[in-house]
C-alpha cells in the first residue's frame, strides 16, 4: 500500500486570511443568498470531470451567514483584502519547524473548487515552503509542501435542489502540510499524523477543538488508481479508514478478477427507461416512485449477473458502489438484480425486465428512480462505473465517514487547475522576517511534555495525554487556579472523557465548558470526585446539559456532616459483632459499606477520616 497524507490545520489567528472578520462559529445564520457555480473552461477546451459532475447535478448553493462572522469578502461580493500577516508568520514558523525551505515570494493562487464550498468557485492558496522532514520516532518522513490557504464554508445539509452552507468558517486560515507517501502500515500513517499534529500544536498558534484539524488521504494499492479520501476529522480513525479503503480496493480487485475469469474483456451496458414495467410493481419503493411521477431507468451489464451482490469482503460489493453514486446524486440508491428478491421485485417482473432490455444471458440489471434528468444522468454515471469494474479501482474522491469507512463523493478532479489570484499582491518574504521568526521557533513538543511531568508531577502517559488533548491550556489554568492536585485535574480533563468515549459516548458531547464546571464543582466541594464519571456520562448521554443538572438527575446532593455521621452510626450498629471480633481490621469492609451508601456525595477521604474517628471513639468508649 501507499498512503499520502495531507494535514489541514486551522490557525488561531485573530482575523480571517483575506478579511478582518473574527473567527467565530455562529449559532444563528439570519441572512442568506443563493448562487450557481459554472465550470470554467480551460484554454484547451476541456472542462474538469469533477466540475462537470457537480454542475450536472444542477443544484444551487444556498449560503447562510451572520455579520458577526462574515462580510462581503466571504460572500464573494468584495475582493479579498491583503493576506493576514499573522497567518503568514505562523505558517513560516511551522515551515521552519519542519525544516521546510521558504519561498522568497509568496504567490496566492486560485484553485478551482466547484462543489459550492467556496462562494468564489475557487480556493485561495499559496505555497509557503518546499521540502523538509518530520521526525517520527527517529524516522524521517519527507515533507512535500507547506501551503497557507483559506478554509471552506461549513456544509449544513442538502436537498434535491440545493446545498446549504454556513459562511462562518469560510476564509479561516489553514495550513496544509503534505507528507511524502508512506509505504508502511496504517498505524505508521496514523503515527505520522499524530506527530505532525503535536509539532503544529507546539507553536501555540494553531486552533484547537473538533474540526480544527482534518486529514486527507491518497490511498492506492499496487497497480491501482489513487483514491482521494477527504475529511478524516479524528486522528484515531485514520488507521481504520485506511484499512477499510485498502480492503475495498483489494476487494474490487477480486471482483475485477472474477469478471475477467468469465471471459469479459469489456463490460457492455445498455440503458433504457422502464417506468411502464413498474406501474403496478410489487416493490413498494418503485411503486411510490412511479406514482409520484418519477422515472425508473434500468442499466444492464452483460455477464455481470451475480457479481453485483458478490462480497469478497464484508461490506464490499459492486452493488454498494453503485448505490453510493446514486446517493451522491441525491437519489435514494439503486435496486440491482442480485437483490431483486429482497427488494420486492417479483420473478415475473425480473423476466419482463430482461425481455424489455433485450440483454443477453447472465446480464445484471440496475434500477434507479428519480426525476427524468436525474435518473438518466445517474444511469449514465452507473454505466461508466460498471465499465470501470474490469479495471478494479477507479480514481475517485471519497469522503471518510464517522464510522471509519469511505463513501463515494465524485470523480477525481483532473490535475489541479490553478491560476494566479490577481486581486492579492505577492508577498516578499524578507530574510529579516525569516530571522525574526526564527527566534520564535517553539520548544519541541517532547520538552513541553517533560515540563508537564516535572512541573505538575504527572506520569509521562498523563502528561502526553494532556499535551495531545484540546485542553492543555485549560489544564494549566486550572492547575494554577484551584486547590485540586494537577493529576486529579488531568484525570478529569483527559482520562475520564477518553474512557467514556470508549463506552460509546460522543466526544463532542462533553465540551470544555462542562469539564471546567466539573473541576470547579469538585474544587468547591459541591460534588465528590468519585462522582465524576457518572456525572459526565449523564451529560454525554444528553440527559443533562451541565454538571449541576447531572447532579440533580443522579440525585446527588452533597452529604452534610450530620447525615454522614448518621449513616456511619447505622453501619457501625449493624456490624457491631464484626467490629468486636476484627477490631482494626474491620475498617476496610465497613468503609466499603459506607461508600456504597454515599458514593459521589462526599469525598472518599472524608468518609475514611470520619469512620476512623468513629471507630476510635467507640474503642475509647468501651474503655
Amino acid at each position, binding site marked *: 500500500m501507499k498512503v499520502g497524507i495531507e494535514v489541514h490545520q486551522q490557525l488561531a489567528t485573530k482575523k480571517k486570511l483575506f478579511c478582518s472578520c473574527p473567527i467565530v462559529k455562529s449559532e444563528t445564520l439570519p441572512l442568506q443568498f443563493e448562487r450557481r457555480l459554472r465550470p470554467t473552461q480551460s484554454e484547451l477546451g476541456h472542462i474538469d470531470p469533477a466540475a462537470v459532475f457537480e454542475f450536472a447535478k444542477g443544484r444551487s448553493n444556498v449560503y447562510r451567514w451572520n455579520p458577526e462572522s462574515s462580510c462581503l469578502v466571504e460572500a464573494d461580493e468584495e475582493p479579498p483584502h491583503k493576506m493576514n500577516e499573522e497567518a503568514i508568520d505562523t505558517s513560516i514558523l511551522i515551515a521552519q519547524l519542519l525544516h521546510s525551505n521558504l519561498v522568497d515570494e509568496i504567490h496566492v493562487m486560485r484553485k478551482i473548487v466547484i462543489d459550492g464550498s467556496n462562494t468564489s468557485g*475557487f480556493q485561495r492558496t499559496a505555497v509557503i515552503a518546499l521540502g523538509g522532514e518530520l521526525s517520527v520516532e527517529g524516522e524521517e518522513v519527507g515533507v512535500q509542501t507547506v501551503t497557507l490557504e483559506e478554509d471552506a464554508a461549513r456544509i449544513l445539509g442538502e436537498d434535491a435542489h440545493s446545498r446549504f452552507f454556513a459562511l462562518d468558517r469560510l476564509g479561516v486560515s489553514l495550513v496544509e502540510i503534505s507528507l511524502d507517501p508512506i509505504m508502511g502500515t496504517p498505524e505508521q500513517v496514523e503515527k505520522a499524523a499524530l506527530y505532525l499534529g503535536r509539532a503544529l500544536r507546539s507553536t501555540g498558534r494553531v486552533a484547537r477543538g473538533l474540526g480544527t484539524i482534518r486529514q486527507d488521504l491518497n490511498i492506492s494499492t499496487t497497480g491501482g488508481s489513487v483514491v482521494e479520501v477527504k475529511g478524516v476529522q479524528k486522528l484515531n480513525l485514520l488507521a481504520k479508514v485506511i484499512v477499510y479503503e485498502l480492503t475495498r480496493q483489494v476487494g474490487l480487485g477480486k471482483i475485477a478478477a472474477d469478471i475477467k475469469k468469465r471471459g469479459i474483456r469489456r463490460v457492455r451496458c445498455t440503458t433504457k427507461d422502464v417506468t411502464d414495467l413498474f406501474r403496478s410493481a410489487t416493490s413498494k419503493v418503485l411503486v411510490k416512485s412511479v406514482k409520484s411521477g418519477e422515472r425508473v431507468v434500468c442499466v444492464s451489464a452483460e455477464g455481470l449477473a451475480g457479481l453485483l451482490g458478490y462480497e469478497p469482503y464484508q461490506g464490499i460489493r459492486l452493488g454498494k458502489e453503485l448505490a453510493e453514486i446514486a446517493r451522491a446524486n441525491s437519489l435514494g440508491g439503486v435496486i440491482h438484480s442480485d437483490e431483486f428478491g429482497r427488494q420486492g421485485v417479483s420473478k415475473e417482473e425480473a423476466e419482463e425486465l430482461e425481455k424489455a432490455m433485450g440483454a443477453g444471458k447472465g446480464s445484471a440489471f440496475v434500477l434507479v428512480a428519480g426525476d427524468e434528468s436525474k435518473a438518466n444522468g445517474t444511469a449514465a454515471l452507473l454505466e461508466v462505473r460498471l465499465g470501470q469494474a474490469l479495471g478494479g479501482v477507479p480514481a475517485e474522491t471519497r469522503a471518510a465517514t464517522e464510522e471509519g469507512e469511505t463513501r463515494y463523493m465524485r470523480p477525481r478532479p483532473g490535475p489541479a487547475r490553478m491560476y*494566479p489570484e490577481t486581486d492579492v499582491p505577492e508577498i516578499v518574504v524578507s530574510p529579516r522576517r525569516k530571522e525574526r521568526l526564527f527566534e520564535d521557533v517553539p520548544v519541541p513538543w517532547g520538552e513541553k511534555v517533560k515540563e508537564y511531568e516535572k512541573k505538575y508531577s504527572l506520569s509521562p502517559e498523563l502528561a502526553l495525554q494532556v499535551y495531545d488533548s484540546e485542553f492543555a491550556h485549560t489544564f494549566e489554568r486550572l492547575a494554577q487556579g484551584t486547590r485540586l492536585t494537577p493529576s486529579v485535574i488531568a484525570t478529569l480533563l483527559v482520562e475520564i472523557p477518553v474512557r467514556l468515549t470508549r463506552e460509546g459516548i460522543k466526544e463532542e458531547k462533553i465540551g470544555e465548558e462542562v469539564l471546567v464546571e466539573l473541576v470547579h464543582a469538585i474544587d468547591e466541594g459541591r460534588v465528590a470526585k468519585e462522582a465524576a464519571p457518572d456525572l459526565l456520562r449523564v451529560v454525554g448521554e444528553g440527559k443533562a446539559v451541565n454538571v449541576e443538572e447531572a447532579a440533580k438527575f443522579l440525585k446527588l446532593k452533597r452529604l452534610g456532616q450530620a447525615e454522614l455521621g448518621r449513616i456511619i452510626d447505622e453501619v457501625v450498629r449493624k456490624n457491631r459483632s464484626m467490629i468486636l471480633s476484627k477490631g482494626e481490621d474491620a475498617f476496610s469492609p465497613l468503609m466499603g459499606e459506607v461508600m456504597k451508601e454515599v458514593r459521589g456525595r462526599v469525598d472518599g477521604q472524608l468518609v475514611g477520616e470520619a469512620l476512623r474517628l468513629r471507630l476510635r471513639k467507640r474503642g475509647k468508649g468501651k474503655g
Partner: protein
Amino acid sequence: MADFDGYRGNSLEFLMRSEAGVGDMVEVGTEWGVITGTVVPRYQYDDDRHIVLKLPSGYNVGLSIDRLKGLTRKSSGEKPAFAPPPPPPSPKEDLPRVAILGTGGTIASRVDYRTGAVHPAISSEELYALIPELSEVARIEPEIIFSVYSENIEPENWSRIAERVSEAVAGGIDGVVITHGTDTLGYTAAALTFALQGVPIPVILTAAQRSSDRPSSDAVLNLVGAVSVAGYASFSGVYVAMHDSESDGRVALHLGTRVRKNHTSARDAFKSVGVSPAALWSREGLEIHLEGLPQRRKAAKFSSKPRFEAKVALLKFFPSMPLTLLEALANGGTRGVVIEGTGLGHVNSKNIPFIRRFAEHGGLVCMASQCINGRVNMNVYDTGRDLLSAGVIPLEDMLAETALAKAMWVLANSNSIEEARSMMRASLCGEITERTLR
C-alpha cells in the same frame, strides 16, 4: 525569440543570460536543492529581484535571483494550444436576432491555466460554447466595436455605440445588447438614452462585477437576461441589466437615465434611483414594474442623434472649493457645468458672482444634488434663490451623472443656449420625475 512578459532590470538580465523566457521549462538551483518549473509572467510593477516559477503542482512561487545558483533551460514553452472549444449548439432559425456589441470588459472568457492568462470569447461560436443556454434564447451576432476600460470611455465612444445601434436597427435586428465595464456604465446608459431617443427595440447594457473567468461570475446570468430581454421584451428603449440582489436569480432592468452604480463591488451595485426598476427578469419570465414604457415597434423609421459636446464639467461642490475653479473651467473653453450642490442645491454664496458671469457669457449652468436621493429645490433658502437669479437651472431629481451626459448631448443638439436651457429643464427620457416617491 524568448518572451519576457513583465520581467525587467535584474531579473530580465538574469533570464536573458540563461537564455530562458516566459513559458520555458527550467531547472533552478537553490540553497536547498533543485526545483523544476515553468517561467511565468510577472506584473509590470513588481520588483526586478525575483523570478516566478509555476511548479508541476500548479502553484506559483517567487524565487530571489540573488540566492539562485543558476538556471538551466530544459525545454522551450509549448505555445498554448488554441484547440477549438466543444462544438456549439446551433440556434433555431425562428429565434430572434440579437446583436451583442462589445465595448470592453469580458463577459465570457477562457483561462489558460498554464500562464494564468484570461482570453475573452469573441465569436458567437465561442459564446455559444461557453454559455450553451444562449442558443436556446436567440441567434446572437457578436461584434467588438472597441475595447476600452470603462474608466477610459469618452463621449466619442458613446457616439460610436449609438451609430452602431442605429445601423443594427436599420438591418432589422430584434434587440441589441451592449457589454461594458461597470465603472462608467451609468454614464453611458444615460448618454445612449438621449442619443437613441425613439429607438424601436430594446437596447440593453450589461456587465459583470465578478470577472467571467471565475465559476462564480455574475456575467452569465446578466448576459442571458440581457439577451432574453433584448430579444423578447414588449418594450423598447435603453436599459441596464444587472443582478437584482446578491443571489443568482433575478436581473433588474434599470431605466438608462435613472441608474447609478452605488457599490464598488457587489453584484447588485446598480440601483434605480427615485423609481423602481423598469422590469425584473428571471428564467421564469419578465415582470414589468414601471408603467408607460415605450412599446417595441416593428419596421419603424429611426435615426440616432449621436453627437455629444465633450466640453462640459461635472463639479462637486465642497466646503473649501476655490472661487477660481469655475473661472478656470470657463477659460478652458468649458461650455456647460453641472454643479453637484449640497442639500437642496447650494454652493458657497461667494461663488455666485462667478456663476453669474459664466451664465451671462452663454455658459450652461445646472444644479443637481450630491444627496443622490431627493429633489433640488432652490426656493427654500436665500442662497438657492440667489443662484437661480444668477442663471442656474435647477434639475429637479435628475441624477448628476445623467445631467452631465444630458448637458453634453443637449449642447451638441440645440441651436442656441436658450434652447439648450429649456431642453435641460424638460424631461426628455424620464430623467426627471414629477413625484418624489422615495
